């Protein structure tokens, strides 16, 4: 160890020097306080032995100065003193001394004190470097978090239409990253897709899952996929990447302002609320699917609900962070407190702000325990974006023309792939009438699944009425499909443009013919069996009938013919 002796008594200094040198220390000597401080600064010793009474600068002052210039490290100062009075010792400590040694020197005590100081010094150095490492680490983590947050925000918000005039939203994360995902975008058919997702937990881990979902959302929406397709893709992705105990409760909406319809896929989010022009609750749309990322989709999992919208309807969507917002006495905001706003006493255009204010007031200064998201869609303002530039760019209109296509599927093909997306994409790539995609999709999907499930596989939807039956239905479907060795499904689709009196194209007409090679099934029966059961089965043929101009089944019931008209 490098030790500095500061003492004006040469004899003392020499004795100490010898003692310490013999122990293997490197020893430096200074003859007064001032010289000691100077030598300390230039030589950086690791320990100082300091006499008190010296010329130029006394020991107390020299110790103070040494401590001042070495504040970033620990250098023990041991006073060499003949003083035994308490006053003097107190002054030693006050001037920054760490210990004292009384003259005459005892070799053993000197050694012991130096060793003890060395141990403290080493501990100090270690602590200091650990503290530095921690600070650097913390700084690095914070920098990385800031960069990640920047990336995250840009990826998730890329091209989002959350600033559309018909939308008002609030999303408050409880930490730096939001575990709630809120995105909106127009599809090529002019429908507004909106998604709210709520991941298990919050913070970074939840946010990481949000990134692939937002990419799927924007990508598939732009390509004209239905919200059912998007939900299925997202579910598959999350199943792939997330641990079992994580999932994402989500609600996807397609708002079609022209057709005044709302399509909903709700898996695990609170009821979607539809409020009328008087500010009164008109309808609630509960979750009827499992959240995403729990198990693979069955065909029913991709089914969407279709609802009518009126001009002044407002739609409210929120994550459970809203109703579970807790005040200091652990009372929750709750459904009742939220829904009491929809009693018709609050002007509809004030609802959003009033509810936020009520939440704020309720929570007071209680700590936020979950991410909170709240969204309002005002259907009356939907048209404002329709004339905007962004919207015009977002859609591409193909003028109605003459075309037709046919598909023929053998049992072998039906067993290996689901041909439905191929059918849909072919049709959509040829003619994608604005605001009609989901309808055409729904018609084709329903006719196809009826042809397969009832026509070829002879399944009875009544089985699906109970949860046990629901599972049995799909088990039965799987078995029968695997054993299918005869029959076929044939689809013929013909599109013709429609003209007005002045020979101007005003739209088109689609003739859809779906034939299966089965013995025929009682479509009237399927129709009536499903009407009273919307929770687990499709509304099947009843739904198709409500969407199209004409629907007819032949006898014996293995061929459906549909006419669908659309206008520009």
């Amino acid at each position, binding site marked *: 160890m490098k030790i500095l002796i500061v003492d004006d008594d040469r004899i003392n200094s020499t004795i100490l020097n010898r003692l310490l040198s013999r122990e293997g220390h490197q020893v430096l000597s200074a003859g007064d306080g001032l010289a000691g401080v100077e030598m300390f600064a230039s030589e950086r010793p690791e320990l100082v032995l300091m006499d008190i009474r010296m010329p130029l600068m006394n020991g107390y002052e020299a110790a103070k100065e040494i401590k001042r210039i070495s504040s970033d490290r620990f250098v023990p100062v041991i006073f060499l003193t003949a003083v035994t009075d308490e006053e003097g010792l107190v002054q030693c400590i006050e001037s920054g001394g760490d210990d004292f040694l009384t003259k005459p020197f005892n070799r053993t005590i000197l050694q012991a004190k130096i060793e003890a100081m060395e141990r403290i010094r080493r501990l100090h150095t270690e602590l200091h470097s650990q503290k530095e490492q921690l600070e650097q680490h913390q700084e690095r983590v914070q920098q990385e978090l800031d960069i990640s947050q920047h990336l995250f925000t840009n990826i998730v918000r890329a091209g989002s239409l959350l600033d559309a005039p018909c939308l008002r939203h609030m999303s408050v994360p409880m930490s730096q990253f939001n575990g709630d995902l809120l995105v909106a975008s127009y599809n090529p058919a002019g429908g507004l897709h909106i998604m709210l997702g709520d991941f298990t*937990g919050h913070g970074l881990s939840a946010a990481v899952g949000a990134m692939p979902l937002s990419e799927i959302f924007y990508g598939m929406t732009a390509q004209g996929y239905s919200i059912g397709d998007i939900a299925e893709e997202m579910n598959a992705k999350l199943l792939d990447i997330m641990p079992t105990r994580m999932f994402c409760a989500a609600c996807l909406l397609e708002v079609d302002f022209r057709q005044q319809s709302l399509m909903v896929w709700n898996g695990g989010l609170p009821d979607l609320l539809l409020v009328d022009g008087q500010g009164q609750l008109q309808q609630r749309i509960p979750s009827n699917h499992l959240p995403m990322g729990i198990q693979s989709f069955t065909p029913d999992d991709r089914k969407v609900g279709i609802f009518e919208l009126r001009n002044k309807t407002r739609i409210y969507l929120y994550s459970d962070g809203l109703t579970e917002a807790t005040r200091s006495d652990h009372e929750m905001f709750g459904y009742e407190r939220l829904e009491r706003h929809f009693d018709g006493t609050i002007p509809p255009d004030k609802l959003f702000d009033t509810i936020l204010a009520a939440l704020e007031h309720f929570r007071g200064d209680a700590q936020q325990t979950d991410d909170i998201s709240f969204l309002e869609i005002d259907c009356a303002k939907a048209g404002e974006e329709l004339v905007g530039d962004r919207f015009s760019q977002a859609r591409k209109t193909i003028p109605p023309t003459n075309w037709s296509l046919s598909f023929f599927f053998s049992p072998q093909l039906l067993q290996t792939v689901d041909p439905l997306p191929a059918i849909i994409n072919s049709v959509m790539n040829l003619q994608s009438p604005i605001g009609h995609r989901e309808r055409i999709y729904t018609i084709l999907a329903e006719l196809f699944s009826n042809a397969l499930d009832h026509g070829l596989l002879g399944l009875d939807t009544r089985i699906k009425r109970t949860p046990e039956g629901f599972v049995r239905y799909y088990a039965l479907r799987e078995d029968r499909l695997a054993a299918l060795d005869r029959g076929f499904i044939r689809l013929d689709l013909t599109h013709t443009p429609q003209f007005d009196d002045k020979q101007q194209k005003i739209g088109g007409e689609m003739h859809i013919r779906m034939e299966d090679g089965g013995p025929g099934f009682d479509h009237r029966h399927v129709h009536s069996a499903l009407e009273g059961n919307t929770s687990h089965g499709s509304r099947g043929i009843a739904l198709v009938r409500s969407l199209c101009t004409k629907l007819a089944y032949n006898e014996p019931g293995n061929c459906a013919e549909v006419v669908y008209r659309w206008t520009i």
Partner: protein
Amino acid sequence: MSGTISIARADQETTISIKGRFNFEMHSQFRAAYQEETVDKNRSRRFIIDLTGTEYIDSSALGMLLLLREEAGTNEADIEIANARPEIRKILETANFQRLFKIT
């Protein structure tokens, strides 16, 4: 603040009762409560999750139930969620957990 867990083991049946708040803080406790039983994959066992004294359930708790279901054999798992109060039942039903568990 989190809840407490108690376990009762009968011959073929394990009952896990949760009192208080069933949230992310219960993770290791809950896992420890069933893990002994799920080690032997060949042994079939019934689980009853008794929510009589449960005041609150969050999405992490739903995640724990999914984990139990997986470790007990996914579709073969025999798990009953019993005695949930109406608010909690609503949370379970919003997540459509009746498709994965027997809720009584």
